[in-house]
């Protein structure tokens, strides 16, 4: 399997705190990679580095075998090709329809085709009847669905999700998980990185799982190996639910 | 972005409307020549200029822009070439202005009168004063005795300077005056009169501002306690007209400024000033060199009588008469 993105020896500090230290990782095409770990392990930072939102202090980020820099002028172009869903769903102060249209406009879509695509997507999301409402009045679940659509409407090859299920009720979580699976099944080259602290979600969704611990990836393995035959003591404890975080 | 496009259009439309407005304004006002006259608030607020200027504007097909400010500010505007002509009343500052070469000529135009205003009951007995100095002496005596109060403009205006000069002639230094009776207001004449009304105090005022306040019944407790007949030469307030030096400031409208000067000191201009009445009073007394009030019959009088009719020093009259009759200006 080929890798769509790779990290080589990546490290990032925030003032005195080392958020990520020396992480190397490859995200393969067509897989859902889960990144598990307790809060403060550096998962979100790692995702931001992969998503080219922040440059690492050291190490390299490679996209399709090419080193890229989050500060470069091409970074916005590269981000446009990905989809990133951040932990806190935020919407712009405009209609649901225009929120979604914004995602396409930013990505340079032709003005004429934007609204056709948007209306089609809203219908699919079950938000068709609310398309002219201000997005701020949506419920938490609807908002997160809109955010998800915003990150996938342009059919990216790479989708990065940061704790999308935080603050959602179980029904909405399962709805979103279903949407993620649907997205994954759109093509064989879709790579998805799913940051979560929820063991069961990782078990349900992922092909491979990594455990992040104090800024490092201490184990990365196929799902069955990870959960049933962990190679590291800490992984075993984590999987048993013995680690309180 | 479609929305942004609409926004941009709206902003551009607004901007265009406003810019066109400015342009229209600029072009419209180019139609008639404009004379910029800097003057003191007294001539403007009294209504005199509104009364006399339309005739000049018709005669010369021009507009007069009146900028009514303090004497000092008007003079500064002249020095910087921002106005074409001055109509001011600050003799010493005017002399300095002429010495600096900022003015083309300085000609006396008219005077108005100061009056001592105080409580109608006149506790200081100002009414019986022999002259202005005597009146001020009485105020000082009563003031230091704690019987009356005096409000000074305290704003370095012409009126304030006049007041200071009278104290000075009495060898009194206002900076030693007790602020229990001598109040320095730092305000305009109207505001000072309002204060006197409240405090039952005396003040030196130009007659027009007092009459205006009195006619609107704003100062019922006050009355003119001295110089009601306007006979005291000390309490005269002399106005001069000074065209700004057009050699120093080429854009100054020399033709129009000269025309204005000639017009306001001409018989027609002077008669017009004399005919202005407000609050049932004549407020300004024309006294340009060579002018004879038309009530004293028209110029057929012998020289000796003409001289006595003029309210200008004899020396000045002599200068005016020795220069060519057409140019009625004297450089002091």
């Amino acid at each position, binding site marked *: 399997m080929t890798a769509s993105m790779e990290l080589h020896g990546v490290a990032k500090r925030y003032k005195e705190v080392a958020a990520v230290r020396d992480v190397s990782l490859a995200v393969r095409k067509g897989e859902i990679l889960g990144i598990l770990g307790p809060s403060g392990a550096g998962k979100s930072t790692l995702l931001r580095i992969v998503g080219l939102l922040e440059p690492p202090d050291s190490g390299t980020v490679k996209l399709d075998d090419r080193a890229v820099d989050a500060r470069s002028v091409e970074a916005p172009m590269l981000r446009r090709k990905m989809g990133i869903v951040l932990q806190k769903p935020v919407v712009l102060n405009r209609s649901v329809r225009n929120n979604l249209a914004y995602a396409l406009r930013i990505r340079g879509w032709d003005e004429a085709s934007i609204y056709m695509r948007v209306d089609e997507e809203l219908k699919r999301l079950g938000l068709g009847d609310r398309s002219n409402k201000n997005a701020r009045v949506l419920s938490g679940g609807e908002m997160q669905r809109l955010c998800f659509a915003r990150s996938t409407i342009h059919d990216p090859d790479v989708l990065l999700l940061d704790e999308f299920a935080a603050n959602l009720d179980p029904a909405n979580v399962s709805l979103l998980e279903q949407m993620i699976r649907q997205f994954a099944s759109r093509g064989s080259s879709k790579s998805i990185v799913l940051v979560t602290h929820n063991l069961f979600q990782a078990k349900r969704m992922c092909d491979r799982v990594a455990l992040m611990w104090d800024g490092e990836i201490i184990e990365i393995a196929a799902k069955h190996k990870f959960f049933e035959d962990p190679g590291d003591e800490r992984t075993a404890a984590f999987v048993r639910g013995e680690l309180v975080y | 972005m479609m929305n942004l496009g609409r926004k941009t259009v709206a902003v551009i439309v607004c901007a265009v409307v406003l810019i066109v407005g400015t342009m229209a304004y600029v072009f419209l006002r180019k139609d008639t020549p404009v004379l910029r006259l800097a003057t003191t608030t007294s001539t403007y607020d009294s209504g005199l200029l509104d009364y006399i200027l339309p005739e000049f504007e018709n005669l010369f097909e021009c507009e007069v822009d009146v900028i009514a400010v303090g004497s000092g500010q008007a003079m500064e505007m002249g020095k*910087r070439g921002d106005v074409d002509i001055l109509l001011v009343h600050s003799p010493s500052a005017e002399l300095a202005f002429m010495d600096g070469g900022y003015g083309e000529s300085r000609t006396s135009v008219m005077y108005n009168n100061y009056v001592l205003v105080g409580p109608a009951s006149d506790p200081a007995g100002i009414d019986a004063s022999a002259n202005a100095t005597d009146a001020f002496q009485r105020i000082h005596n009563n003031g230091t005795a704690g019987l009356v109060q005096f409000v000074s403009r305290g704003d370095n205006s012409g009126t304030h300077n006049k007041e200071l000069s009278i104290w000075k002639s009495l060898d009194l230094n206002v900076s030693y005056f007790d602020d229990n009776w001598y109040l320095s207001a730092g305000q305009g004449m109207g505001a000072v009169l309002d204060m006197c009304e409240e405090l039952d105090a005396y003040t030196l005022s130009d007659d027009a501002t007092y009459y205006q*306040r009195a006619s609107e019944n704003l100062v019922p407790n006050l009355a003119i306690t001295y110089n009601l007949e306007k006979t005291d030469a000390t309490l005269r307030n002399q106005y001069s007209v000074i065209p700004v030096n057009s050699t120093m400031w080429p854009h100054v409208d020399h033709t129009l400024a000269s025309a204005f000067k000639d017009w306001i000191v001409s018989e027609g201009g002077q008669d017009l000033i004399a005919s202005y009445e407000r609050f049932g009073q004549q407020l300004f007394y024309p006294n340009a060199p060579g002018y004879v009030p038309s009530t004293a019959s028209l110029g057929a009088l012998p020289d000796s009588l003409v001289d006595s009719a003029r309210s200008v020093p004899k020396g000045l009259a002599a200068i005016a008469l020795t220069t060519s009759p057409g140019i009625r200006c004297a450089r002091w």
Partner: protein
Amino acid sequence: MVGTTGLDLIEVTLLSLYVSGMATILGSAIGIPLGALIGLKEFGGKGAVKTVTYTLYGFPPVLSGLFVYYLFSRAGPFGSLGVLFTPTAMIIAETFLVIPLVTGITITSVVEVDKNIKDTVRAMGASSRQSTLTIMREAWVGLVMACMIGFGRVIAEVGAAYLVGGNIDGKTKVLTTAIMLETRMGHFEWAMALGAVLLFVALAVFFFLRLLQEKELL
């Protein structure tokens, strides 16, 4: 009769609107981008720049007038333009008073836009220009507020308007200078009536801006 008659009132009111409106538009056209720049870009001495901006809120209007007077006086560097004692000079002086207010409020407004929104917009691949525009759009309510406060300051301002305008009848007499003139002449009732007109005009403009703020018409 000296002073402002009923007919003059329309002219005086329109001129007030024109001068304050133009100053607000120009001041906002400069202040909003400037405020966005200061608020969103990271640079050395940013704190000091902000402090200076907030300090300039208290910039004395007469000083602004004096400054513009010196610039456009015949003896000054731009004297040949003949701008002094015209509405244009008033607009320029008032614009200087609007800029710090609008800049400062813009800084506050764009800084207060949710950091998550800034992040999300970047994550979608917005260029820095696009994300700045989006953040400003999100800060819309604050930006309109900045214009309102700027307008409020200049429509009520008299010192600079009097100094560089000269209160010339029919040319540069605005509501505030007319109020000052009437007050000087003791026509307190008339002055207060003019004050009521001024407040009414401000109310109408604010109402319009409130509409913009809420409906995002513009």
